[in-house]
C-alpha cells in the first residue's frame, strides 16, 4: 500500500519490531502509537507500561499524556510512580524502552534537555523525565525520531540519556549489562549498532535512497553494504493505525 506517509512508515516499522512477549515502557507520541499498533495487530498480548504507573494497559485511543484516564481504566493494575521506577524499571522488568530524541549521535546518545549551553540555553527542551533510567535499565532501547541534520548530529549538545557513550564504550564503563540502543527508527530508515556500537543503516524505507539518508544525517553515516528495503505498510497495518489516530482525534477534541 503506497499511499502512506513517512510518519506512518516510521510508526509501522517500529510496531513490527515489537513482540507478543515484550514488556514495553512506552513514551507519548510515536512510541505510544507504535506500541498500540503492535497490540491491535500482530502482538495482542504485548504488555504496555506507562511511567504514570499503569501496567498492562489496552487503550482504545492513544493517550495525549502518559497519565490519561484511559490508561488507568484499561490497565491490569496501576502502581505508584516510585514503585514504577523502582520495582519495574530499575528492577529490570522492562524488555523494550522507547525513547524519542531532539538530537541523537552516531552512538545512539540522546539529547532532550537543551540546545546550546546548559546554563543559558538557546532552546530549553523538556528534559530527561524517565529517559535516563529507561536508557540504562531496559533490556533494549528503541529510539524513534525524524531524520534530519537537526536531529542526527555529529555532537549532541547534552547527553540526557546514554546510548553507547560519546566514544562508543560508555555502557561498558558504567558496568551496564543491558543492550542499549538496539534499533533507531526514523522516517527514512532503520539503524542498528555495529560491532563497535556505531549506528549503521540496515534498512531503507520505500523510495528512500542512500544519498537522501546521507544528506539528512549530520555525520558521515555508515550504511551496510546491501541495506534491506523496509516492506511497505500493509493495508491491515495502515488501516489499524489510521483507525487509532481517528479515534484519538475524536476523543481529544481534534487538533488545537
Amino acid at each position, binding site marked *: 500500500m503506497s499511499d502512506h506517509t513517512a510518519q506512518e512508515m516510521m510508526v509501522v516499522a517500529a510496531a513490527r519490531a515489537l513482540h507478543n512477549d515484550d514488556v514495553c515502557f512506552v513514551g507519548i507520541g510515536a512510541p505510544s502509537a507504535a506500541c498500540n499498533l503492535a497490540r491491535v495487530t500482530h502482538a495482542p498480548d504485548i504488555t504496555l507500561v506507562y*511511567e*504514570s504507573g499503569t501496567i498492562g494497559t489496552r487503550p482504545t485511543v492513544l493517550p495525549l499524556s502518559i497519565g490519561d*484516564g484511559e490508561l488507568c481504566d484499561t490497565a491490569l493494575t496501576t502502581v505508584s510512580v516510585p514503585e514504577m*521506577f523502582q520495582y519495574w524499571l530499575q528492577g529490570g522488568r522492562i524488555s523494550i524502552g522507547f525513547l524519542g530524541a531532539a538530537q541523537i549521535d552516531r552512538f545512539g546518545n540522546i539529547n532532550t534537555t537543551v540546545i546550546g549551553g546548559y546554563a543559558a540555553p538557546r532552546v530549553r*527542551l523538556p*528534559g530527561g523525565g*524517565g529517559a535516563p533510567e529507561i536508557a540504562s535499565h531496559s533490556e533494549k532501547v528503541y529510539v524513534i525520531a525524524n531524520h534530519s541534520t537537526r536531529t542526527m548530529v555529529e555532537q549532541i549538545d547534552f547527553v540526557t540519556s546514554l546510548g553507547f*557513550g560519546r566514544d562508543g564504550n560508555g555502557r561498558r564503563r558504567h558496568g551496564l549489562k543491558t543492550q542499549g540502543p538496539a534499533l533507531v527508527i526514523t522516517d527514512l530508515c532503520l539503524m542498528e549498532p555495529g560491532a563497535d556500537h556505531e549506528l549503521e543503516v540496515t534498512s531503507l524505507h520505500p523510495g528512500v535512497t542512500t544519498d537522501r539518508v546521507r544528506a539528512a544525517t549530520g555525520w558521515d553515516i555508515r550504511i551496510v553494504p546491501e541495506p534491506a528495503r523496509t516492506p511497505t505498510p500493509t493495508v491491515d497495518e495502515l488501516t489499524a493505525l489510521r483507525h487509532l489516530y481517528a479515534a484519538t482525534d475524536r476523543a481529544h477534541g481534534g487538533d488545537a
Partner: protein
Amino acid sequence: MELLSLRDAVARHVHDGDTVAMEGFTHLIPFAAGHELIRQHRRDLTLIRMTPDIIYDQLIGAGCARKLVFSWGGNPGVGSLHRLRDAVEHGWPGSIEIEEHSHAAMASAYAAGAAGLPIALLKGYHGTDLVEHNPNIRFVEDPFTGQRLAAVPALRPDVAVIHAQRADEDGNVLIEGIVGVQKESVLSASRAVVTVEEVVADLAAPSPNSVVLPGWTIDAVAVVPGGSHPSYTHGYSDRDNAFYKAWDAISRDRDTFQQWIRDNVLDGESP
C-alpha cells in the same frame, strides 16, 4: 486536620519563600490551589514537581517562583511550557534557578523524604550530563561490593498541596487511579493541604489496600469540586486534552498569557 476554604487553607499553610510540592502525575493536579497561590501573590517559592505541567507554567509566568526542582518540563503530548522556557531562556518575568533530575531520582527522593531518610539511592544517572550540572547528584559506594550508586537528597517540602477524590469528616483522604507521588509528597512535607471533590460521611474505599491518607497526616482539607481541571479526577472528571492543546497558543505570548491569568485567575473567586 481542619476543613477550611481554599483561600484560608492557602493563606494559613503556604508562605512566601516556602518550598512547595504540588504533585499529581498528570492526574489530580491541584490547579485550583495553584490559582489561589497566584491570587494571593505568593513570591519566592521553590516549586518542586516531577512534571511542572501547565500548573507551574502559570505560577512561573505569574512571578511566584524563585526556583524549580523538576524532571520533565513540557506540556504533555503538546510541546513546550512556554512560560518556563521564557523564564529560563530570557529571565521573564524574573530569572529562575533550576535543579534538574530524572523521574527515577525524584520519585525515590520523595519516597526517601517520606521515610525520614536524608538521601535516596538509585541505580541511575549512568552517563548523563545531568550529573555535571546538578551538584545534588552524588555517588556512594555499596559497602559490600564497592558498586557505585547514585544518591540524591531526599525531598522535604515545607508544604505539599494535592488534589484527591474525597475526604470523610475526619479528613481521611482517598486517592485512586494514577496515584503518582501523591502519598509521598504529603508524607515528605512538613505541612499538607488537600483539595477534594467532596466530603462524604463514608470514605467508601473499595479495597482494604486503597490509597488512603489518614486525617492526622493532613493540615487542611478544602472542598473544591473540579479543582484539578484541566487535569482530571478519576471517577469524577475527564482530562481536558483540548485545553492542554489550547494552552500552547495562550502561553506562547506574554500578553496573551497575562490576559488569561487576569480573566481566569485574578478576577476569579477563591473557592
